[in-house]
């Protein structure tokens, strides 16, 4: 009727008739495929989700547990020294001199010290327990300031410092309490030590810096001396060092504790072990990281697989888009974008799962949650790269397809 019916319309040179796909439309087109096939999209993104969840979860959990350990170390202090007898080869039945506790306490940089003596008696839940079943527990005569020196705490009841010295009462270490079957002190509780029934007045929390004490039952020194055979020489002395270099103090300790045989005195710093543990990479963490990487790889292969199938299945759509004016580059971009969208989706879901698992587990352990930024960002970046790599080959195949061939499908 009007211009359209009459000869040449528009009359633009062919080079001006270029195809053009807006950047926003690249995304819109890329989303159209995954949106039209939701369950397939979910399944193909699953592999990457699992991989990313594993990586983020494992890194999050190991960092959170490490930080919990470091918090413990900070709370317990790194300035504790443990002084015991024993040492060089052929030392035999070495023992600390009786005077060692007093001497150690006199070192100017030692702010607090406390000693414990082995009691020659075994502890049982009752007199009916056979003599052999000691449960690996030891009876110890301890000074009133043992718990405070170790920064320990009382779980239930009281420690010996709140009981007059010659009262024959017992306080249980955490493991000792468990093995003796004492969970609380709501009722009067007695244990059998040697020939006597002794009332339990307290249960202690764990001593992370002195695990031996967890398996011990503590008696006041005076009461132990009266009722049982007590070795004269202390089994162990704990010393807090304040001010000055702890290593300098550590060097003067042997000579102070046993001036005659300083080489028979062993001085250790129990926080060293915890610090080493915090620094060490857990073999299990490495294993799970490896598994996560494998899951990620398999997820990437899964996406490549799904995309190859999609290209075959959607030949008609590819032909249509070419007929509507899409260039090879537009088709390539569409399928590449689709693959990246699938893996990014997997990455986001994996991130959420990984962070969720970390929070849930940390909550049960009472840890502070730490998700390393590198783990979150790196995991997501890895997902994007995997999607791009996985989409490359299918996208090239889609772009290579001749429009006539595609439309024949």
């Amino acid at each position: 009727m009007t211009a359209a019916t009459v000869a040449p319309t528009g009359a633009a040179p062919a080079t001006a008739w270029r195809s053009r796909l807006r950047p926003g439309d690249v995304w819109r087109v890329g989303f159209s495929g995954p949106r039209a096939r939701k369950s397939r999209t979910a399944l193909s993104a699953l592999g990457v989700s699992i991989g990313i969840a594993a990586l983020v979860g494992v890194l999050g959990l190991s960092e959170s547990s490490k930080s919990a350990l470091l918090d413990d170390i900070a709370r317990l202090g790194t300035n504790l020294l443990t002084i015991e007898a024993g040492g060089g080869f052929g030392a035999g039945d070495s023992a600390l001199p009786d005077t060692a506790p007093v001497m150690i306490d006199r070192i100017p940089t030692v702010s607090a010290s406390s000693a414990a003596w082995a009691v020659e008696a075994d502890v049982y839940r009752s007199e009916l327990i056979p003599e052999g079943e000691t449960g690996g527990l030891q009876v110890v005569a301890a000074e009133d300031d043992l718990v405070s020196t170790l920064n320990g705490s009382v779980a239930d009841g009281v420690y010996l410092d709140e009981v007059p010295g010659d009262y024959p009462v017992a306080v249980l270490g955490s493991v000792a309490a468990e093995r003796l079957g004492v969970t609380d002190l709501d009722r009067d509780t007695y244990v059998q030590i040697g020939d006597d029934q002794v009332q339990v007045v307290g249960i202690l929390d764990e001593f992370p810096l002195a695990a031996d004490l967890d398996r011990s039952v503590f008696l006041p020194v005076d009461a132990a001396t009266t009722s049982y055979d007590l070795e004269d020489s202390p089994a162990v002395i704990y010393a807090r060092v304040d001010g000055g270099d702890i290593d300098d103090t550590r060097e003067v300790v042997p000579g102070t504790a046993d001036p005659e045989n300083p080489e028979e005195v062993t001085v250790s710093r129990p926080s060293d072990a915890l610090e080493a543990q915090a620094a060490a990479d857990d073999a299990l963490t490495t294993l799970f990281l490896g598994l996560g990487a494998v899951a990620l790889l398999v997820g990437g292969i899964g996406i490549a697989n799904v995309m190859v199938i999609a290209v075959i299945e959607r030949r008609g759509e590819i032909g249509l888009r070419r007929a509507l004016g899409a260039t090879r580059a537009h088709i390539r971009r569409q399928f590449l974008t689709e693959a990246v969208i699938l893996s990014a989706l997997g990455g986001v879901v994996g991130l959420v799962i990984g962070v969720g698992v970390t929070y849930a587990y940390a909550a049960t352990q009472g840890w502070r949650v730490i998700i390393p930024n590198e783990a979150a960002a790196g995991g997501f970046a890895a997902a994007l790269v995997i999607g791009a790599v996985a989409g490359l080959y299918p996208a090239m195949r889609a772009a290579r397809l001749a429009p006539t061939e595609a439309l024949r499908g």
Partner: protein
Amino acid sequence: MRRRRDGRDERVSGAALELRDVLKEFPGHPPVRALVDVSLRVDHGELVAVVGPSGSGKSTLLNVMGTLDRPTSGLVAVDGVDTAQLSDDVLSGVRSRRIGFVFQQFFLLEGMSAVDNVANGLLYQGVSPADRRERSIAALERVGLGHRLWHAPNHLSGGERQRVAVARALVHDPAFVLADEPTGNLDSRSTGAVMDLIHGLHAEGTTIVVITHDPGIAEALPRQVSVLDGRIEHDSALLAGVAS
């Protein structure tokens, strides 16, 4: 008339579509000659039927006319522009702006409304989403589907789907529309509706080439070009020209 940078006239034809001495061979021993000596001129505003039995070469002819495939030799001019020297990318651009396609299988994308399917006809011209939508709604109203704008293809009847596809072929104002067996997948009632639509669009000035194997459909159109064994056997326009 526009001129190229070297001053030569870019247009080789005033027709919407012109084929001159087109030969199309497919490799083989001996090579298969799908089109031989095909010359065909479709002027703006024409409605033409290309009719022939299966295997006659009409699908190859459709592909060459639509620039989906290149001829072995001969001229193919779309809206006056020789396509022989154009790169694959520019040919895509020619399709995006100057040619509309309607297929027997509709080729509508599932999971997309009728409007969005029609809007795909403007996608590769870089038209903004808002303009695409506006023009798609207008095109759907033009084919009588103003009441089905937001339906997904699987909620439309066969005839309605083909009308969506026709709207998609029209939305960018092409020089001509190529309709490949547009009624091949439709029942007789829908066939009537789609052919009525094609006649109506022709009356409004749209240039349309219908490729069909059905002589009944071809006879109802103003001009018939019959194809057999890769050659144009009969062109009613040429006969009319001779007669006059």
